């Protein structure tokens, strides 16, 4: 067996080569920071399940990525976050959907895995489960960024759903003529 290994992503999509530095650099810094969190966790002997939860929590806390704080907005200008986690050794897994106040959805997904006989809880019941377990929650407005309000306006203007990194403009060519990517 070789040593430990870790990979992480901050989303993908229609990222043009001329992506502005003022958007690119904060995302690269955030990736480096979250990678360092994962490497330190491994070096301190944490198991893979703890490592992936820790890293995704850090990524959720970065407003530049579409998860946790910085989540994008639905057509109704609401936030609906979702997450899942899975342990390869036992195949135990947990998932949540439809959250709008939970600061770290990935930790709630892990609680579903560890504290219930189920795999998946969603919407109001998932929010109630979060409160019952003292998971950190905030007003939804704390999770919304001005950039994402602007992006929803752009998407509505072009009557499209928007790719994570689409530059606003007429419908994207290719797949369905719309970019529907999370």
């Amino acid at each position, binding site marked *: 067996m*070789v*040593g430990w290994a*870790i990979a992480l*992503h901050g989303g993908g999509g*229609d*990222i043009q080569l001329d992506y502005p530095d003022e958007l690119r650099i904060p995302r690269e810094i955030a990736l480096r920071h979250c990678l360092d969190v994962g490497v330190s966790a491994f070096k301190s002997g944490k198991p893979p399940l703890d490592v*992936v939860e820790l890293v995704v929590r850090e990524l959720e806390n970065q407003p530049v990525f579409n998860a946790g704080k910085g989540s994008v907005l639905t057509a109704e200008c609401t936030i609906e976050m979702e997450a*899942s986690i899975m342990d390869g050794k036992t195949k135990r897994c947990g998932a949540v959907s439809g959250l709008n106040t939970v600061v770290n959805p990935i930790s709630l997904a892990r609680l579903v895995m560890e504290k219930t006989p189920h795999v998946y809880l969603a919407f109001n019941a998932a929010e109630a489960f979060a409160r019952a377990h003292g998971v950190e929650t905030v007003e939804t407005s704390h999770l919304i960024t001005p950039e994402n309000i602007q992006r929803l306006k752009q998407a509505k203007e072009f009557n499209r759903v928007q790719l994570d990194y689409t530059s606003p403009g007429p419908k994207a060519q290719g*797949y369905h003529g719309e970019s529907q990517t*999370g």
Partner: protein
Amino acid sequence: TVGCVAVDSAGNLASATSTGGYVNKMAGRIGDSPIIGAGTYANHLCAVSATGQGEDIIRGTVARDVAALMEYKGLSLTEAAAYVIDQSVPKGSCGFIAVSANGEVTMPFNTNGMFRACATEDGYTEIGIWPKN
């Protein structure tokens, strides 16, 4: 969408994915990230976390396909991932990260770019957005 996969030196694997969905989506729409076997999967062979067009990733059962190709066709992680990114989803719709029990790391995507990073115990690290070449 964000995600992380990890394997320790004993070959134990885990995967985690989290997202806000996509801009202007219908309220109530569920994407691939919380669907085990689509955007997130881990077993004794590999751990996978995906990002992209959720409906296509669900239709393609992307994360489970990678594991199944390793399990039933004996492909390596890199081979299984390359097959899935080329065959299981439309071009321009998906990317994922994956690690295997023997420490392989792969981060393929068929979109213009994917924000990604990886590190291994032997000191290798990579941070990228666009294809390496």
